[in-house]
């Protein structure tokens, strides 16, 4: 008898109020197979998984078209509980663990092993006591199935990020009937070594007959782990291949639908002025988790200056501190003038602008239209897009000029939206980032801080964002200070790169230096320029 695939999707279609997000999506997945699902943000991956999982939002918006066959039977899950019952587990990008509980307790949450005691007779089964020994055995079985080292008694809030991820997966594995596991960007928050362990663990699961849908932006993971890869673009499958028959380049090309040229550093033709435009002297910033202790550097006019380093070492604190968002001290001079610290409006008025790493928290007015998002800072700090009434006594908002400005940026940055009045919350990550850039460019800054500009956005949007930054630097002469965790991104765009370690600069080198040099600096092997004895 021929084997039926575990999961088969047939011509899945879905629209949100007339906006087609999935068109004729069909693929199948065999038992024990790992399927890599890739696509730009907004390509429809999340929607597809929501359909599979029976999320309420799908039914609230009119259901979907097409058929889902699971284990040979047609299914249409009405709620995630039905999906769980059928043997589908899902691990989301964000952790849903209880911080104060141990790994065991989290893994077995609501499925605990219990013991009888006399109170049950009076108060029902809820009074049964926990059988901790059996729970531990069960949790350890799940962890062993995953094949990783994980201290089962450790509290979740004391765990490294990787272990939290393992706990989440173990929780899904503990269900005895699990047949299909969906992992939504499980490696996005992990360090490289943690990611390697996770990938190996996922491979083990497949060997034990559990099928996996693996969603990731890291294409080399897809190649090394998955049996086949499905590439979504604008809600359609553009490529479905065995991973042995394809390559990272081919997948990336299929994702963005245009050939992705290598992002090579472009050497400057002109020589930069030696007189620095920004001088940072013994800066400290009290930003939780990103403390800056003592940083001094200078930036030349027209330069793209990179700031890199591992997470939590303080690189993010530098722009946030200078822009007045966190308490800072030391001295910052811009164009020969002292910049007021701890004063966001003073810094903006001196000609600096900031694209925050916290796009949704700080960067955008999510519930307001795009034109407000783009024009607001300019309007408030420079009194542009204002019509003075009664001889300047009243500053009337010029809605027409604001909409025109927004339209201009929507076109020049290719922001995909329905118009200037669309709310920012409705855009995809990459387009939101472009709105943040437009907001920063609109103030016509002389110096621009860009913090993690490509975090959480897809390959195509990444290139557009980096191109835009370079274009504004070259054509408008804006000096750029770019903070990023992605070293290659810094190396491809910047002139010089400073690496931050433990709140101090461990070295500043030209971007042409080898990656290994920067790697050593990140690990703290450099000569600290501004720390005396450590």
């Amino acid at each position: 008898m021929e084997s039926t695939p575990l999961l088969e999707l047939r011509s899945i279609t879905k629209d949100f109020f007339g906006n087609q997000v999935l068109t004729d999506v069909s693929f199948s997945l065999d038992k024990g197979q790992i399927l890599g699902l890739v696509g730009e943000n907004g390509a429809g991956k999340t929607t597809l998984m929501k359909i599979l999982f029976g999320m309420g939002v799908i039914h609230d918006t009119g259901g979907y078209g097409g058929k889902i066959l699971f284990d040979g039977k047609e299914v249409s899950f009405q709620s995630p509980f039905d999906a769980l019952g059928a043997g589908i587990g899902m691990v989301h990008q964000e952790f849903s663990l209880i911080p104060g509980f141990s790994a065991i307790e989290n893994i077995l949450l609501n499925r605990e092993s219990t013991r009888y005691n006399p109170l049950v007779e009076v108060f029902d089964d809820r009074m049964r006591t926990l059988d901790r020994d059996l729970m531990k055995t069960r949790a350890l079985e799940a962890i062993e199935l995953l094949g990783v080292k994980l201290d089962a008694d450790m509290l979740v809030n004391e765990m490294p990020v990787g272990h939290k991820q393992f706990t989440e997966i173990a929780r899904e594995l503990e269900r005895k009937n699990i047949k299909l596991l969906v992992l939504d960007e499980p490696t996005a928050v992990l360090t490289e070594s943690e990611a390697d362990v996770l990938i190996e663990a996922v491979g083990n699961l497949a060997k034990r007959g559990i099928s996996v849908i693996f969603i990731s932006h890291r294409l080399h993971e897809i190649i090394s782990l998955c049996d086949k890869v499905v590439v979504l673009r604008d809600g359609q499958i553009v490529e479905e291949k065995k991973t042995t028959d394809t390559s990272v380049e081919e997948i990336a090309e299929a994702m963005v639908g245009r050939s992705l040229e290598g992002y090579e550093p472009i050497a400057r033709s002109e020589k930069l002025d030696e007189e620095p435009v920004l001088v940072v002297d013994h800066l400290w910033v009290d930003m939780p988790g990103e403390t800056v202790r003592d940083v001094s550097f200078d930036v030349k006019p027209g330069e793209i200056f990179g700031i890199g380093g591992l997470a939590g070492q303080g690189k993010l604190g530098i722009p946030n501190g200078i822009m007045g968002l966190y308490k800072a001290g030391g001295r910052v001079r811009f164009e020969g003038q002292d910049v007021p610290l701890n004063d966001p409006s003073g810094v903006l008025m001196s000609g600096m602008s900031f694209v925050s790493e916290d796009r949704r928290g700080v960067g955008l007015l999510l519930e307001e239209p795009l034109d407000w998002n783009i024009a607001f800072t300019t309007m408030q700090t420079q009194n542009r897009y204002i019509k003075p009434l009664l001889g300047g006594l009243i500053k009337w908002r010029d809605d027409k000029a604001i909409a025109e400005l927004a339209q201009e940026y929507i076109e020049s940055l290719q922001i995909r939206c329905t118009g200037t009045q669309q709310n920012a919350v409705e855009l995809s990550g990459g387009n939101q980032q472009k709105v943040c850039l437009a907001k920063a460019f609109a103030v016509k800054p002389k110096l621009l801080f860009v913090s993690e500009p490509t975090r959480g956005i897809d390959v195509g949007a990444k290139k557009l964002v980096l191109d835009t930054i370079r274009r504004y630097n070259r054509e408008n002469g804006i000096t750029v200070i770019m903070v990023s965790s992605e070293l290659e991104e810094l190396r491809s765009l910047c002139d010089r790169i400073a690496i931050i370690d433990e709140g101090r600069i461990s070295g500043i080198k030209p971007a042409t230096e080898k990656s290994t040099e920067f790697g050593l600096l990140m690990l703290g092997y450099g000569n600290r320029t501004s720390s005396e004895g450590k």
Partner: protein
Amino acid sequence: MSMESIKKFIQKVGWPRIIIGIFLFSLFIAAPFVKVRVSTSISDTLIRFGMNGVMVLAMVPMVQSGCGLNFGLPLGIISGLLGAVLTIELGATGFPAFLLAMAITTPFAILFGFGYGNLLNRVKGNEMVIATYVGFSSVAFMCMMWLLMPLKSPTMVWGYSGEGLRTTISTEGFYLHVLNDFLAVRIGEKFFVPTGMIIFLVLMCLLIWFFFHTKTGTAMTAVGSNPDFARAAGISVDKMRVISVIMSTWLGGIGILVYQQSFGFIQLYMGPFYMAFPAVAAILIGGASVHRATIYNVLIGTFLFQGILTMTPSVMNSIINTDMSEVIRIIVSNGMILYALTRVSHAGSRG
């Protein structure tokens, strides 16, 4: 009309407004059958709409700046009461008296609003709870002050002792109906449109609408929408919030003056105590949330809420022969507040 467009309409207008609108409409339809005059009912509804509109409008600035619903409305009302009693003490009459009361209210409202705003800045996240206590405790404090104030006007003080203010003071001879009667339309004996009062409400709404189209108004909306964004754009979040609280307090003060000139009495002591709840309920019925309120919400909400308050005693009581008006008022106003607050926690849990 297709199913789709009906759905869209319902989504746009919102179930609460549709249900209450249908209820109110059916009360108007039922009125003639139980011998309640429709013309009187419409007049009464319009008068109560005008009387309460400005106090409902007093919710808007604070909601827009992220301070939540103005449960501290009694504080604003107290500034209006101070304006009212001082005007009477000075002996002004007619329309100038009303203007004078507004003028005297203003500095008190700014002072109270400034203190109230700074207090709310210290309790971010719990504004509405604290605001409720501010309202209640300020009323209690003023209960003492009304007794102790050295005012002498014989229309206001207790007759037997000659000192301390009375609980209710008539505005007759001072500014009774100065707005109601301005350009008033009378048809027959029973139908009356308080044109001046409606015009005044519209002017106040325009003033607020206008404010939210200025630079400062835009900044205030941004502060309410995302304070971190506003701060990164160089806006002083605390300052904007204080300005919004001052505006709300001032509107509360002006609102009670409009109320008094129509109602005919200044109610001191416990008078302002429960004034916040009907105003809060009205704007919520109008479709406002704890994070967003518009002039449209004010007008629709005040009309529906006051319409129900006007129609239920006359119509419902005639139908079922018991006094249900108070029960319905309490169910509608508190039910609406509960409904809106549960919607908040729902939105919050989604992140």
